[in-house]
């Protein structure tokens, strides 16, 4: 029991396959992670790497045309083994989600107060309208919406992008969940607003002791808020570790590529390098290591990269540091 309390979210060997006309496409291929209470795990990757599918799978929100295997334990209960009815009890109550595009994710026809209150009432059927509304105003205040009582009566389109995202967050935390999944929560926002929204998320995590999964492609965001990082490529985790492991001693060529293509305020005048090639997607997966066609170190290893997929192996750094690369733990990347 202590284990589930310390790690409210545990994902084991998650696999998601989509059935398409061209055959089965594997979007997530054997992903495992756990998030500690009050910690932030960032899942980083390019679009199409499977990070959004992973985050949706955590709430059991995957389309009918997909098969999901493995286990997703939310406070000890396996999302994938539960009935839809039981899943609905957990969703929004113990595990919540913040979506990227709040304008699309909020119902345009209902006031924001109504939407937050509805999210509360789903799990508190005994609460009357008034109580739910009061709770919604509280939640709006908690995410830093000024004059929450007045603004609760407004519609989503009357809010700025940053404020809308705060409403989205209020909807997610109104029931004080143990796990919060944030899928690119700041991608659609201006840089200055991004920082504010991240700060709101960080404060809430600290106050409520939530375990948070932050899905993003932005390493700047990761550096600001994450405790642990998992780098995802083509449905696999290719490297994971603490934020220091990843930034100070990247051990996978892909992670290195991501770091080199992100502006670093301290390294003035250094040229940004793009990763050559295009990301491989589930339907056109290369043999062996999925990254090998774009990898600068592949010639160093040779044939092996083309035939054998590397497993996650220990790397120097913290004891959680792992990377899936044939280069091995001794080889230090520049």
């Amino acid at each position, binding site marked *: 029991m202590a284990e589930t309390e310390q790690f409210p979210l545990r994902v084991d060997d998650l696999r998601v396959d989509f059935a398409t006309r061209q055959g089965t496409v594997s979007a997530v291929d054997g992903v495992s992670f756990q998030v500690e209470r009050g910690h932030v795990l960032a899942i980083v990757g390019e679009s199409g790497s499977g990070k959004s599918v992973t985050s949706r799978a955590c709430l059991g929100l995957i389309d009918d045309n997909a098969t999901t295997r493995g286990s997703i334990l939310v406070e000890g209960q396996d999302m994938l083994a539960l009935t839809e009815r039981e899943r609905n009890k957990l969703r*929004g109550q113990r595990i919540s989600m913040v979506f990227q595009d709040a304008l699309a994710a909020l119902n345009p026809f209902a006031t924001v107060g109504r939407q937050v209150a509805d999210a509360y009432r789903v*799990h508190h059927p005994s609460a009357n309208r008034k109580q739910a509304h009061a709770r919604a105003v509280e939640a709006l205040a908690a995410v830093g919406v000024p004059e929450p009582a007045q603004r609760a009566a407004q519609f989503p389109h009357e809010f700025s992008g940053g404020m809308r995202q705060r409403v989205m967050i209020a909807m997610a935390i109104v029931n004080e969940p143990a796990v919060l999944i944030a899928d690119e929560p700041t991608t659609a926002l201006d840089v200055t607003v991004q920082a504010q929204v991240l700060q709101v998320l960080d404060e809430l995590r600290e106050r409520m002791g939530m375990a948070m999964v932050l899905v993003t492609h932005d390493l700047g965001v990761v550096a600001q808020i994450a405790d642990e990082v998992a780098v995802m490529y083509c449905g696999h985790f290719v490297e994971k570790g603490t934020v220091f492991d990843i930034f100070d001693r990247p051990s996978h060529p892909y992670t290195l590529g991501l770091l080199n293509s992100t502006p670093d305020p301290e390294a003035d005048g250094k040229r940004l390098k793009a990763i050559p090639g295009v990301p491989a997607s589930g339907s056109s997966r290369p043999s062996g290591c999925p990254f090998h066609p774009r990898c600068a170190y592949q010639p160093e290893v040779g044939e092996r990269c083309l035939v054998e997929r590397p497993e996650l192996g220990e790397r120097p750094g913290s004891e959680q540091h792992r990377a899936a690369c044939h280069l091995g733990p001794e080889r230090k990347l520049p």
Partner: protein
Amino acid sequence: MVRFIVRRVIISVFVLLAISLCVYLIFYSSTVDPARVICGRPCQPERLTQIHQLMDIDKPAFAQWLDFVKGLFVGRTFGTGPSAMICSAPCLGYSFDLRQSVTSLIVARLPITASIAVGGAVLALFAGMASGILAARHRNRLPDHLVRGSSLVLLATPTYLLGLIAILVFGFWLNMVPVSGYVPFGESPVEWLWHLVLPWCVIAALSGSSYARYARNQMLDELGAEHLLALRATGASPRTVGRTARRGVWVPIITLFGLDLAGLLGGAVFTERVFGMHGIGDLLIDGVGRHDLGVVVGTALFGAALIIAANLVVDIAYGFIDPRVRRG
């Protein structure tokens, strides 16, 4: 919101006046002389002039249009003395052939057309919505194929053809319903209903198909929309999710319905002819047959007014339903 409504109403009135002006300029400047029809044959020139004066068509089209607009608000009187023909406001014109105002002709026939159109449209709406949502729920399975296949065939079938086939099958071969005619509701509600069942079903099958198609696609869009995913993420029950999705379908469907209802006056022309009912559509066709310009112009303008009124209602309704329209 009040400003929004007022603006819409003013625009609508202007559009209506513009249409009626165009219609007058075109119809009353044409080479066809409506007086000749009344005059009969042989027609003495003096009598023709007399009739011209009586009909108020001895002036330019624009002046006639002014008379028409005046008649709309205060009514008109044609001729003098005991034989004067009074067309009280709102005067949509006068049929010198039938010696009745067009307004009273339309009012007399409105119940027939309204019975056909409203009943058919309501039935079409519910049948179409239900089958469209059913198809979306069972996407790419049997119900979906059935709904899509039948709506494809029905959408390609002209109203009059389907109506006649329905008469042949249900009225004649199976002898289930009367083949034609209309019985006023006040006379016998049962007979009224009995005579209307077939036309309603024909309209429901035809315009219901387009509702079904639309509702299906809209429902699929809704089910895939991010705000529904977000709603599911809050743990809302499938019932709540379904209800929210259906609400997203109803909003655009209702606007379609409003326009369809007004447009059914056009469709009624066919339904009335097929089922032998003497409604407004029949009035128009009959007017063309008798070369009765007053009736034809009046009926067509009435149809235009209906469409514009429906547009207005739909716009305003949208303003109430969708908060984004009001302010934007």
